[in-house]
């Protein structure tokens, strides 16, 4: 029997893993210089895909004796792979073609919302609740998710700051022309960063619906959690380690919103505002200190990388 605190800790782990993975993936993506305005659409798409894959895998594989946990985990990985493909697509076209990162990103955001509904809605309609396809409510599963997301964060940190590929990713983000002159293949480097980044966004989205909420609804796309992760990543300077406390605090604010509301007798909509106000307050706080310089965005972020000749 899980007590109140155990359950709170479990839900907190799921909230943290979701926010952290999405913000981490987004950070890796943007550190390569590609502006990521499709984040909210891709996040919602990943929630729909996770539900679809999980339902399909459960109904087809569990009859063959495959463990339901394996089916759900596979669904998360598959979701990550599909979103990774989107990341590769974005990295490719935004590096090879002289086109607006912002316009492509926002277009893809709408497409992500629409496709997310296409993916998730039939499952919702057929089964009602998706809890049967979700991860088991088990402290081991929640702890493992927490550990895996932290491990991914540490690995990303090591990769970014201690390896050649990390240096190349950051160089592409700062000045892709200079990086190219030094021998870095910009589009290949961005393919790696954006593919890996969006893999993590996809897995984060699947955890949101299959572990944290254990619920999927067509209206989830108006929640803005993708934008929320975007802001957290920005506030933490897209740094994998600094993101950890940020994701923890804001995950808690989102998760315990209802408790805060009940404890302080706040109206539901005022309580809903708290995480968003806190995010702006945080940005204002660090904007007024020396931390601002540390957290500055890559200088080449969102700028069109125009180069006459490219070898593909």
């Amino acid at each position, binding site marked *: 029997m899980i007590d109140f605190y155990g359950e709170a800790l479990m839900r907190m782990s799921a909230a943290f893993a979701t926010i952290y993975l999405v913000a981490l993936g987004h950070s890796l993506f943007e550190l390569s210089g590609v502006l990521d305005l499709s984040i909210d659409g891709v996040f919602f798409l990943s929630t729909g895909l996770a539900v679809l894959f999980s339902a399909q895998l459960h109904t087809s594989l569990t009859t063959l004796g495959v463990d339901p946990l394996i089916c759900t985990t596979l669904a998360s990985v598959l979701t990550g792979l599909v979103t990774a493909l989107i990341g590769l697509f974005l990295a490719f076209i935004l590096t090879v073609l002289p*086109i607006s990162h912002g316009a492509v990103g926002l277009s893809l955001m709408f497409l992500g*919302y629409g496709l997310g509904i*296409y993916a998730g809605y039939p499952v919702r309609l057929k089964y009602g609740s998706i809890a049967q396809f979700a991860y088991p409510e088990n402290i081991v599963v929640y702890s493992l998710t927490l550990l895996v997301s932290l491990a991914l964060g540490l690995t990303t940190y090591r990769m970014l700051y201690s390896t050649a590929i990390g240096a190349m990713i950051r160089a592409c983000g700062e000045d892709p022309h200079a990086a190219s002159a030094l021998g870095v293949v910009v589009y290949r480097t961005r393919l790696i960063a954006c593919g890996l980044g969006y893999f993590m966004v996809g897995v984060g989205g699947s955890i949101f619906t299959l572990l944290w909420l254990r619920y999927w609804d067509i209206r989830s796309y*108006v929640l803005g959690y993708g934008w929320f992760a*975007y802001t957290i990543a*920005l506030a933490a300077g897209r740094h994998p380690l600094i993101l950890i406390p940020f994701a923890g605090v804001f995950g808690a604010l989102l998760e315990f919103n209802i408790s805060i509301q009940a404890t302080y007798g706040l109206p539901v909509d*005022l309580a809903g505002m708290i995480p968003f*106000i806190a995010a702006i307050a945080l940005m204002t706080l660090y904007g007024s200190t020396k931390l601002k310089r540390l957290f500055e965005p890559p200088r080449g972020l969102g700028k069109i990388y125009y180069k006459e000749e490219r070898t593909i």
Partner: protein
Amino acid sequence: MKITILKRKKELKYGAVIASLLSILFGITIYLVIIGLFGVNLVEAINILGKSFISPTIMKDFLIIYVMGCGLLLSFKASLWNIGGEGQFYIAMIPGIVITLLLFNPETSSTTVPAFIVVLLVIITGSVVGAVWAAVAGTLKAFMNIDEVPVTLILNYIAYYLVNHLVSGPLKGKKTYGYLRTDEIPGIYRLNIILPITRTGNQFEEAVYSFLTQVSYYIALLVTAIAISVFTWWLFKYTKLGLYIKIMGSNPEYLYATGVNTKMLTLLIMALSGSIIGLSGSLYLLVEWGRIPYGIQSHTPGYGYLAILASWLSMLDHRLLPVSAYLVAGLRNTGLSIKIAGLGDTEQTLIILGSVLLGYSITRFIADYEVKIR
């Protein structure tokens, strides 16, 4: 494989038009492939798509997206990315409700203030509130160099929650048949001219009449769109501020070096952008909604984001903005028509917007560049 992309030395004859048409066709193909995969009847969908772009119902969306697009264009030209049109649009509706229902409601008080003064007050306060909401991000950007993109984005959600809170609390309606929303604003403050329904039996005559019906119903939006259009043209063509905005977008250091207070300029541009969006929000309340429903994020057509797209697709050229606003409005209209025809649901609007605009954004560059593959 070698891809060579060269900037065109000579402008392509009718390049912008050809590129735009090809891009739209490419985008529509993406859309049709997607919905075809999900089993939607493509012939019916194409039919609806064609009709939606010439349907009179496109009027409202076009006008709102155009006005908001002008507001956003002002800030975008200065490289100030105001992504907060959604929030500025809805928060600007609040004074409209307070003024028409609480302060000057002829049904509950013996107000002697003429209706046009009240309407003017609604529009002015709506603009001011939109300006103030945008100025929050402008202040943080100007004085603390905090990125305006996440701030304006987050302010959208804060605006949603704040409007919801007010609608379910202090502004909650009494005559709403159990629905959670504000009361409807008194008819004397509504800005529509409603023409009587006429059936002549002639299809062409009825189409023209239907168009005129839409024009008269949205006459206030039309007049505003023309006024804002002239204002934008005048601002960029004849004023110092317009010149500053353009230089701010390309070389802000130059402005600073010439003694211009770039901080105050940043604040001013954001506020001006927000005020035009606020104006459109208060007009939308007076012309279309008449009340504010609860759960604004579920009711929003997403004009704030659609106007961003229209603005970007115009390449930040206010002369092209009517075309891009029409394109975006047409796509939204198609999605709604497909939903009405029973070929899909909410996702149709989102997918058609996303796929066509994605196709457009990707291929639009061929107007300015030539591509050689070896």
